[in-house]
């Protein structure tokens, strides 16, 4: 199968295959990623229990921190970049996000309308 990837300079490398970085740089990348991930995790735990901020803002803060955590993972561990060699990965991520948004968002919407329009299950059972 080796002769199917034509030239090593092709913009056709899988993530992790790129060899241009030295080991040191790559380790540094992972360490920074780990530090950021730990920081974000610690902040989440701290925020959840604190009374330093306005209470209703806590869920929002947690959501923001969670999304930031995903970003850190994508950039430092899954090596998503904006480079031309990463078009497939970025498109796959976009498609995945779209599908998750459609299915989760659609489900929440459908079930909310259903609950508004239909009596709860135990009420139906009592009616019978």
């Amino acid at each position, binding site marked *: *199968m080796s002769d199917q990837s034509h030239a090593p300079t092709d913009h056709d490398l899988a993530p992790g295959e790129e060899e241009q970085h030295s080991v040191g740089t790559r380790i540094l990348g992972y360490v920074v990623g780990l530090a950021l991930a730990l920081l974000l995790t610690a902040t989440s735990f701290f925020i959840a229990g604190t009374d330093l901020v306005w209470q209703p803002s806590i869920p929002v803060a947690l959501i923001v921190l969670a999304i930031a955590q995903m970003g850190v993972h994508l950039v430092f561990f899954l090596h998503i970049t904006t480079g031309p060699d990463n078009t497939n990965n970025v498109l796959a991520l976009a498609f995945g996000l779209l*599908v998750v948004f459609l299915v989760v968002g659609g489900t929440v919407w459908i*079930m909310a309308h*259903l609950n508004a329009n239909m009596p709860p299950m135990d009420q139906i059972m009592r009616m019978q």
Partner: protein
Amino acid sequence: MLGKLDWSAIPFDQPIPLIAGAVVLVAILAVLTWVVVKGHLPYLWSEWITSVDHKRIGVMYILLASVMLLRGGSDAIMMRIQQAVAYQSQGYLPPEHYNQIFSAHGTIMIFFVAMPFVIGLMNLIVPLQLGVRDVAFPTLNSVGFWLTATGALLVNLSLVVGEFARTGWLAFPPLSELSYSPGVGVDYYAWSLQISGVGTLVAGINLVTTVLKLRTKGMNYLRMPMFCWTTLASNLLIVAAFPILTATLAMLLLDRYLGFHFFTNEAGGNVMMFMNLIWAWGHPEVYILVLPAFGIFSEVVSTFSGKALFGYRSMVLATMAICVISFMVWLHHFFTMGAGPDVNAIFGIASMIIAIPTGVKIYNWLFTMYGGRIRFATPMLWSVGFMVTFIVGGLTGVLLAVPPADFMLHNSMFLVAHFHNVIIGGVLFGAFAGFEYWFPKAFGFRLDERWGKLAFWFTFLGFFITFVPLYIAGMLGMTRRMQHYDVAAWRPWMIVAAIGMAVLTIGVICQIVQIVVSIRNREALRDRTGDPWDGRSLEWATSSPPPVFNFAFNPDVRGEDAYWDMKARAQQQSLERDRPEYQDIEMPRNSPTGFVCAFFATIMGFALIWHIWWMVILGGLGAWATFVVFAWRDHDEYVIPAEEVAAIDRVNLEERRDLVSMAGTV
């Protein structure tokens, strides 16, 4: 020791499944004995069962689908006879048996006929069309196939050991929950689909990677044959949608095995959530099946009209549009659930919108044929038959997308007729077109045209005689899944439908005869050039059947319709003169990983169904150990020496020379 399994699992009091099971068992034993006595076993093991060659795996997928088509078809015949006779009587099938039959029919036809058929064709053809030597993950491919076969085996095992689900093909709770289905039927259903679902997901990942990463030199995205595009779209949908099915069934299994309450009536479970989730998979699934069929029709129509595909770019756009919109319409399967007019209206409109890209495709095919020099060979007949049939099915679909109309027709025979209209007219006709079209590529000889045309006409007419009465019965108020009925007005239509089923059966028999006749006359039907239909894409640029390495040299693609282009410029000859030196080719080694993995998965699935916990652990450990052994292998490739490549390639070039000189003049 054996969990819930004892002698009462064998239905000794029911002659139909026992006799059917015995016949199948005798047939399997006869084939096995023949294989062993004739000494074919080593060949079968080393060349097919352990093969990681995408072409062989594709052929095995299609073989599995064909065998299961006969099983699912037998169920259909039994149902049509039952409804023809069960007017004010019980018919010949008791209700619990009838319920198992319609559940098994749906499950088998979707998961073990339509899915393996299209995945088989994609496996067989896509690497050839892309001009590459194999798929991205050859051994994973074999694992995927064998896990699908495991699922099929478990479903068929339920015929004689235990029972199958009586819940319909999607096992809606609360009927499928433990309180209403205490038997093993639903467990057979769920575990078969979980195991074969892993196989399908693996195949999806493999084919997406193949299309994205392994294309020959010059094969840009916008030079790919349409079948590769629809394969990409369909497999993206597999990767996105099948995890939803797996998660939903896992929740149902947790309810059944560990007393959870996801979908139960009591303790806060929500039955509606199952409908919602299963259809969030179920609607993309429809397009997973039909998109590859659209790709096949594109190839066939273009080849047999002798023209490039009309509106190639609009076709690509339509394919990708369907790929995305298919995730926005799932509620139209349960308009009647009560989500209210806002939700129903939005999903109704989305369902009508998705008909637009499909309409674009239909017009593209028609314009491809317009002004072309059309040859009505068997694959083309299936394609034209598809266009007629699918338009009817599509229009009844648009009708059902109108929520008020759907409230009248929901779960009626009209619905049954509609989805058979699109699945038979779309997917099955597509699978048959692809089968007839690519059979010479896979085996090196054509199929008999006379029997092929007979098969088409019987199937085509049989289809309408069977399903038009079902539309009418639906309009008259007949609901689906009825074991017996008392309405006199439905009776004549049920009888006509049964007659249609007989005509359809003749079509299937013609198809079997066609294969037998063709194998007998294979010398006369031999395809020596590798290009029997005057094809346009790269699969026709190699011999039939292709050598294990597909292409001696990776083809250099300079435009759409790569092979047509080469022929037109008689490039083959010039290429031959300045062909570079033949080089050694490395190919992946065959591996029993897939078969052994599936063997243990079968043991595990069976044990899970019957609650035999020690056997579950045994099967799980076995499958895991197989994976470890594979991961630690030392030699995963072997080398085909350059001389051997040269020898094989020269034979094909000799045969092809006449053809090429002719093609230059066309």
